[in-house]
């Protein structure tokens, strides 16, 4: 059957093994790409004609901001799968996404603020992009808070899944906020129709950072997922087998 691999993913011992085996295949390329991207972006790329070296924070800011959206989308899709197919592993994936996504969102907000202070002349404005990204952070925190408010795991899974699914409307709002409204934040430079608005010497390290961050997220997710599965299945008999040295 074409779907057996999918159904097998629902088995906690299987996902635990697969995640452990897959993790290094994501972590090592991520490390290589992030180191190469940082060298390319912080050392090799030319300075900007207006901002000088100040623009280089984009090599952390933009990938973090992209990840904040990608992780949320992953979390919402996993939550929906968990809700519809009653798949515990999918709920575990969603629960594992939240702290990672919150961290990326926090990094995007902080790096943006540090860049905004000299360039815009302000650390913070209630601009549509900045405000919607802050709401994303609150959604992540709300999701984690809601989960921990339930003693019963199944109730926690279902209630937080609904929150994750409802919050996904914010994702396109964040992306299009700079296009729909007058905003202080500039329009996209890379994630746009048409050519990116930067030369290849600047763009290439940025894309390496983007792919590196995506793989890094994948590796982190697998590590967290293994922990989540272990904690959920702590009474199951397969655990003793799996944890035998």
């Amino acid at each position, binding site marked *: 059957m074409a779907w057996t691999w999918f159904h097998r993913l629902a088995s906690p011992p299987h996902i635990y093994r697969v995640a452990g085996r897959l993790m290094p295949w994501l972590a090592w390329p991520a490390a290589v790409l992030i180191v190469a991207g940082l060298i390319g972006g912080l050392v090799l790329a*030319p*300075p*900007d*004609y*207006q*901002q000088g070296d*100040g*623009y280089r924070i*984009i090599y952390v800011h933009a990938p973090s901001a992209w990840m904040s959206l990608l992780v949320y989308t992953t979390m919402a899709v996993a939550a*929906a799968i968990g*809700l*519809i*197919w*009653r798949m515990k592993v999918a709920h575990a994936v969603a629960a594992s996404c939240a702290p990672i996504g919150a961290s990326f969102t926090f990094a995007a907000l902080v790096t943006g603020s540090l860049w905004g202070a*000299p*360039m*815009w*002349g*302000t650390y913070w*404005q209630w*601009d*549509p992009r900045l405000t919607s990204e802050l709401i994303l952070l609150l959604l992540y925190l709300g999701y984690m808070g809601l989960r921990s408010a339930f003693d019963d795991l199944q109730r926690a899974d279902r209630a937080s899944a*609904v929150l994750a*699914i*409802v919050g*996904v*409307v914010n994702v396109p*709002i964040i992306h299009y906020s*700079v*296009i*729909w*409204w*007058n*905003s*202080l934040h*500039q*329009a*996209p*430079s890379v994630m*746009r*129709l*048409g050519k990116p*608005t*930067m*030369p290849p*010497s*600047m763009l290439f390290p940025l894309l390496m950072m983007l792919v590196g961050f995506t793989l890094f997220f994948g590796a982190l997710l697998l590590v967290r997922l293994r922990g989540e599965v272990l904690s959920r299945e702590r009474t199951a008999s397969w655990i003793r087998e799996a944890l035998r040295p």
Partner: protein
Amino acid sequence: MTPRRRRLVLVLGILVGVGVAGALALSAFRRNVTFYFIPSQVAQGNLHPGQQFRLGGLVEKGSVSRQPGSMQVHFTVTDLKRQIPVVYDGVLPDLFREGAGVIALGRMLPDGTFQAQEVLAKHDQYYKPPGIGQKLDIRHGEPRDPALDQPPATASAALSQAAAGRP
């Protein structure tokens, strides 16, 4: 209907419901969620006299003049249709320059000058190494497609779009 299909419909229902509610709320906000007004909008007289607001536009080339011996700076904000003179007493951000986007918070004075308390520079999303393409000023070249299949690429494109009636 199997229970699974019912849950699928429920989740899709939540998505559609929240999406429609969000779209309605956003389109209702559209007129109010405006981070700044451009000079043409100010000229329409929708703002109360003395009301604090943000004025956005481009710093007109050749309009920046500084008062010797003080922090005071005068410049003109334009949306390529109308101009408003601005007076500001303070430190300007790094990206403030003639021909680039600017957003100033303040009030109109009775003489038609905008007294700014805070001046923010808007970045134009373009990055390039110094030296190349200086002649061809890419920040002002791109036309705005009204069908939204092109993002508003430049401050001036966003401005002309806004001036065309879409806030």
